[in-house]
């Protein structure tokens, strides 16, 4: 499948991809990370999170992994890791977005960097 075929990505999907870009995370960590990265502008709800995750698993953007350190967690957790395909899709979406920003800048709707 071409990464472009999934574009534009739903914003929750994009944010989740960002959150798991560097390390495997469990659900609540993703929510916290997204909130932190967006200065609390985006707060994912549990429903949105897992609905997105379910779809992302089907689309092969994520895979499930075991907890990196089973002893440290009080509950059994599922961790999610970005796939190589997930990375390509994230890149494609980022490219699409920056293209849009350039367009906006050229039309005077956005300040030039």
């Amino acid at each position, binding site marked *: 499948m071409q990464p472009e075929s999934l574009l534009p990505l739903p914003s929750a999907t994009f944010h989740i991809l960002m959150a798991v870009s560097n390390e495997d995370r469990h659900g609540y960590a993703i929510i916290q990370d997204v909130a932190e990265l967006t200065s609390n502008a985006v707060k994912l709800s549990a*429903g949105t999170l897992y*609905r997105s995750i*379910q*779809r992302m698993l089907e689309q092969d953007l994520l895979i499930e992994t075991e907890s990196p350190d089973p002893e440290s967690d009080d509950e059994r957790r599922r961790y999610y890791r970005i796939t190589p395909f997930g990375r390509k899709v994230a890149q494609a979406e980022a490219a699409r977005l920056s293209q849009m920003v350039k367009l906006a800048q050229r039309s005077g709707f956005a300040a030039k960097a």
Partner: protein
Amino acid sequence: MRLYSALLHLFPAGFRNEYAGEMKAVFARKQRDAGGLLTVWLWIETLCDILWNAALVHLDVLKQDLRYTVRSLGRSPGFAATAVAVAAVGIGATTAAFAMLDHVILKPLPFADQDRLIELFEDHSAVSHTGQEWDLAPANYRDWKRMNTSFEAMASYRNESVNMLGEGEPLRLVGSAISWDMLPMLGVKPIVGRWFTESEDQAGAAGTAVLSYALWQNRFGGEANVVGRKILLDNEAFTVIGVMPKDFYFPTRVPQIWTPQRFAPSDYVDRNDNYIYGLGKLKPGVSLATARAEMRTIAAQLAHEYPKELAHTSATLKSLRDDIGLQTRLMIEALLGAAACVLLVASMNLANLLLARALERGRELAVRTAIGAGRERIIRQMLTESLVLSLTGGVLGIALAAAALPLMVKLVPVSLPIAEIPPVDVRFLLFALGITTLTGVGFGLVPALRACRAAAADNLREGARSGGGRRETLRSALVLAEIAGSVVLLVCCALLTRALGRVETIDPGFRTAGVLTARMMLPMPKYENVAARDRFYRDVLTKTAALPGVESAAFTSFLPMTNLGGVWPVIIPGQAAQDRSSLRNASLRFVSPGFFRTLGVPLLSGRDVEASDSPTSQFVAVVSDSFVKYYWPNQDPLGRTFNFGNHDRIVVGVAGDVRVRGLERLSEPQVYLPYTQHHDQVAMFYAPKDLAIRASGNLTNLVPALRQIVHEADPAQPISDIRTLADIVDAETLPRRVQAIALASFAFIAFLLAAIGIHGLLSFGVTSRIREIAVRIALGASPRNLAGTILGEAARLAIVGVAIGCLLAYAAAMQMRALLAGVTPNDWFSYSAAGALCLLMAVAGSLIPAVRAIRVDPAIAIRTE
């Protein structure tokens, strides 16, 4: 946390199993982080989150299932087409029948507070077996209106046909003269112009008329400036003052024009001259029973006041909405019952198709189960498939129903103020949607559940036997229901067809073939004198008789079955006290000489009325056989006198009885009087207007010449209702015929479906047991033996199905006994015919499977399995 877990049940089970634990963990963390008032906010947020996302997840699943369904149905287009067609037929039949029932019986009439509109009648049943619902005398109506406290409004009308001049050819219009206060009571307004005012209701007021939408369109080109147009109605000047909306019908479906009902003081004199109809609107909170009791009390008071005229007159009240004959009601209910039967058979058939398909796909389902698709997922997927099939079928079914409705118009009684064709409206569509969903879930659920269980275990085993055991029992039960359903329909259809046949063979008392009829409504006062009418009749009859092929022609007040009233009390000198309770009515018809010959009514003794019977000679009458039997049993009636129509008459002839009121109704005895002995300006209602012509050859060829003859006799005189006498009699049985045809097509469809069902079941049985059959053949089972097993299975199913069906059919027949015209509900012929047909069908359906079983080659079968 327990509440949160409960809320999670809004998600599909698959999603829940996967993520509920995680979501609970997230929620627990959030709960820990929040606190105090924030907890409340967290709950609100969570609730919204779950509702929204659960809906989206369901949508995702639905999309997935739909994609899967389209793919899998695309792989078996034959199955898909069959299933859709079967669903369409079942849903279409039921929806059409419901639309009919809704239109004629259930739906509120298009009038304000229609449930409070009550029809008022005089009750003369004390003296007449047809006297329960008589029209009113104006004086009695006036007193009822003045004295009652139950009604907030009361208005009256009478049927009145008029000849219209001034716009093209002379035209006969069916009209109604209505009191001005009717329309405000009905809560309807004209779309153009205005309705009558109170002052226009008085005798001597200038003539005003309101047009129906159809008349406005057809005769006045729908022009907006029609208001103010002058027209001549029966030679009197009228001004058009308004046009009614397209869907306004009153008092029945037919009126084309409305004029004010104008009463002169003289109209209030005779309390036995009944010719107007009353309609009242109950005050809010007053029941029909209360109003009925009050009106009866008022009638009793009037009877006390006017004992001579009203001693035996009471009051009958009836809700306007309920003014539907028992036969019409039963016919439509039977139709809906039959349609429901078709739907049931169709659903069973679909369930069977799906079950067979599910069993064929057993291995695929087993694989899906093995890779973790939950039971819920599979059921859901299969329900999606059945709903897609039923919805597609439903759309087709709606189209079928909409197309079928115009074919059933004859089942909508003309007497109701509603459109001829039931409209396709929201109620219709909602019903169709409901029945479609029900069908989809109904025929989908059982196979889905069963398939799930089947998928559970052994289907992955190579060469596993599919079908058999409990599943086959279920499929047999479905086929059994199909057979029973079609037997019910076949029996009912047979009973009703036999009833129709019986009604059609009822002797109307005249010969229908070879008679052309037409109506010439002579306008008054132009023709109020017998001399004027005589000129017109003689002119028309002489010239008509000279036309090629014409044997005879005659005029009469009303042809049989065209006017159900027109009765008059008979007074026999010396037979009883002159008290109205002893009087019996007879139907009164003025006729011209040759009437009996023209209609083919046998003249049993004496003579016909003759041209020599003049206003100055002895007043004569021809009476019917039943008249003689009632008044002078075993005596010679010729030469006897009786008082009838305000005159003594001597009997000069006896004619055969005629079914004046229709094939299936009781009729009064008949009295025929020469039209020449009809007093000027009296009882103009009875002035002959119907022409009958007995001729050989093609009757329609006479029509142009007849128009020419009437035009020459009076250029302003329109002709209407040109039809054959056979048409008039056929119209009597038309609703029955339409219903019988509808039922027959339903029965045929159900029969076909049941045949497909039996065939499908048995072929599937052979296919799935092919190894067993092969082994039996290898062990030496004879072809006869094998075929016997399969035929036996079919026969067993058929016999049980027929037995159940016959019992149900008997119950249905008891319900519609009133429709059967004397055919008994246990008419053995109908049952044995239906049963034999079903047995035959079962045997025919099992032939191909049986042949296939015999031809099984054991070597090949055992190897391929």
